[in-house]
């Protein structure tokens, strides 16, 4: 119990202290910040539908911050630890040991649906093992798929495994198959029928890049002051810039764009390795570290 509490405390700490990652910022910027109509019109494929709905609620309650976007994951972390504990008691202590391995920690302190899906999938397994609240099994499996669509196959495998153990077709249909399909359909039908746009490729920042990016953005905020500015950023940094803009309510910043080569911006956020491009464009560099450089056009209002 003490180990589980310690693991949870560590997860909370990581959720508060870690700078926002590209994937987390991308999820917020593309699917949580816009209205539902805007999300559907953008036609981007959303793979973390349930998580986005929960994140929207969390952000609505606690405003935009790295912690608020990770809060739903953290809460599902409690469910995960509880289920691991229950399964450990019921099946084997090894289960408990495996369940608290550090490999799982990240999933419950980052803002995407993976942790939620794992917790719900494990919850379905626990309910099946305990043979209690059987109606919830299908609902948990369905919700797991809606939390992360990549869990469709694992959820199907778990459902079939339950059928194999129960060996009761009608009970399985009524309590697992139908609830799972209904729940998944209700939450996924609109996102899936509108997901026609190709997926945007967004390279993930390393931990050190994420930390340096926050410093770069601070420098940019100080440099821009209250002027209305347009920002061009690298594909990996663009969602983070937009997240930062929402977090600090920087209304004078227009939404950052990722393709900075084709347009003129007031400020540019380069990878440090691309600093030569800044020189070619005759930009003035106002910040530089090992990973990023911030530059502005010489005519940009300061």
């Amino acid at each position, binding site marked *: 119990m003490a180990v589980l509490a310690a693991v949870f405390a560590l997860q909370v700490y990581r959720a508060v202290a870690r700078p926002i990652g590209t994937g987390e910022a991308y999820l917020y910027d593309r699917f949580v910040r816009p209205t*539902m109509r805007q999300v559907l019109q953008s036609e981007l494929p959303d793979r973390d539908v349930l998580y986005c709905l929960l994140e929207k609620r969390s952000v609505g309650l606690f405003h935009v911050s790295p912690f608020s976007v990770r809060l739903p994951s953290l809460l599902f972390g409690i469910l995960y630890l509880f289920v691991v504990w229950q399964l450990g008691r019921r099946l084997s202590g090894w289960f408990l040991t495996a369940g608290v391995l550090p490999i799982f920690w990240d999933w419950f302190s980052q803002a995407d649906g993976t942790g939620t899906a794992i917790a719900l999938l494990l919850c379905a397994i626990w309910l099946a093992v305990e043979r209690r609240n059987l109606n919830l099994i*299908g609902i948990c499996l369905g919700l797991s798929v809606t939390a992360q669509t990549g869990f469709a196959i694992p959820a199907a495998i778990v459902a079939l495994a339950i059928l194999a153990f129960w060996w009761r077709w009608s009970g399985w249909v*009524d309590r697992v198959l139908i*609830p799972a*399909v*209904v729940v998944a359909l209700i939450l996924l*039908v*609109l996102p*899936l*029928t509108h997901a026609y746009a190709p997926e945007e490729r967004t390279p993930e920042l390393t931990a050190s890049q994420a930390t340096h990016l926050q410093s770069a953005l601070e420098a940019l905020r100080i440099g821009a002051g209250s002027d209305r500015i347009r920002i061009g950023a690298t594909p990996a940094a663009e969602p983070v810039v937009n997240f930062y803009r929402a977090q600090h309510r920087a209304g004078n910043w227009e939404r950052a764009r990722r393709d900075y080569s084709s347009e003129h911006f007031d400020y540019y956020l380069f990878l440090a390795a691309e600093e030569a491009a800044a020189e070619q464009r005759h930009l003035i560099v106002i910040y530089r570290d090992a990973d990023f450089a911030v530059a502005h056009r010489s005519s940009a209002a300061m």
Partner: protein
Amino acid sequence: MPVIGAVCGAAFTVGVCVALGWLLLRWLKLEFHRLEGVLLAFVSGSACLSLAVFGLCVIHQARLPVFLAGGAGAIGGALWKARGMARGKPLPALPRAWAVLFAVVYVAFLACYLANALAPEISPDGSGYHLGNVARDWRHHGFDWDYHSIYSSLGQGMEMLFLVAFSIGRHPAAATVHMAFQAALPLLMVCYGRRCGFPRVGTFAGLLVYACPVVGIAGVSAYNDLAVATSVFAGFYLLEVNYSQLCTKSLFLCGLLSGHSYAIKYTAGLTLPFAAVLTRGRRLWVLCLGAAAMAGPSMIRNWIWLGNPAAPFLNSWFPNPYWSASAEHQYLAGLREYPQFKSYWDFISQVTVLGGLVPGMIGPAFLLLPLSLLALRQPHGRKLLLAGAVYSIPAFLNTDVRFMIPALPFFALALGLAMENSRGMLPIVVLFQSFICWPAAMDAYCDPNAWRVRGFPIRAALRPEAGSQYIASHVGDYALKGAIERAVGPNQRIFSFAGRAAAYIDRDIVVGYESSQGMRIQEALLKGSVPEAKSQGCDFLLVNDTDMIANDIKQNMRRWGVTEVAKANGTTLYRID
């Protein structure tokens, strides 16, 4: 206020239907429970009224006093017969929570549909040929034997009911009569569920179908799809109720409904063979007798009038001068042609959720239909799935989503049966479909051009000036109504390449693809020979800017021998000099 006329016209028509049906059920000595008795009386009475009006149209006595006198007689007779009679027994009760759920969802959608039905008619086919035929019949107090169009030779089963309502409340009254069938369908499904021992399933399926977007928009328009669906379902209901002991009178009524369904829409002719299969051919003659009583008059009319009892189809079997087999083939091929879809999933999402590339959609909850196969475990489920499969056949012959409507009640009931034992799933799906198919919610996700109910047009329904603006903003041809009626004499004819809002234009319009005469005029015009077109009985031309001859005729009016009379919304009216 036009709305009062519309309500009176629709109420009178529905009242006469119920009265005639009630008299028919009494005459056949068929006993039903309270609510199902009223609903079956309405559906079977609509068949009787349709047949009676058909007879009046043949002898050109379709006049308001005749309708009023006949209707008052039928209502009076029914009331006289009903005096002192005990009310029928109620059906087994609905669980309280389900009764509340049904009442809330049903009333909300009913209010929305009623507001739309009472607004001026703006649907493409409703303002085109459905009410176009009705308006022509009204002008002539019967069938116009000189006017030939594929649409005027169709069954006219529903148009006959529209005619009674139209005589009192004009276009919205007719649409409201169709809405009455739409309102009756879920109630009939609830009765079916209560009768067969699965009341929750009946309620679930009734609401699922009632909230369906294509059912909503087709039901509030002067179409016939909901009348077909309700008649077909009523026929199935009768067979199911009497399955164990096949009663001759009940079979006759079932045959009557089969014939009426055919008279409304030819595709519903499947009802008779399906009923014969369900009864395993027992007392087939009774079924056929009932069907012949309803479908026969229309076939005889077409045989005598056009030389083809199945007009406008089967022209290769019954060659006639009014429409050719090749034109029929071309027309049917056009109906089967789907737009280009990126994938099967694209097609499914269009039909259920988006509704942009196909006209209308059936609602996201119907994506669960594969689960209905689980109903094969039950005898009722097998019959429902078979019925659904049979009534889906027309959907393969026509790309309009509304052609799926007759199959939806059966599939929805089968789906309900499959999900009945999953606790909480039936109400969740019903609530989901109701929320997501509410007009304001659909704005968020479906295609902007999807054919659907878009709100509550109460102003258009209540105020005449707002009503005219409403029609003008949705029906482009309405802007030319005044000019056409001033310039074109009552006996003169207008030619058009495309279909027109004939319901609002008080003159006969010959449409290019709708008859052999139209095709001859079209060919003459495409050759540039206006005198030849005039010799075919065409005095005016309505030309869209997108028509092939539009630019040439506009620039060389003298050479063509025409004069521009009026122009609006990309359409020009020319007089042939």
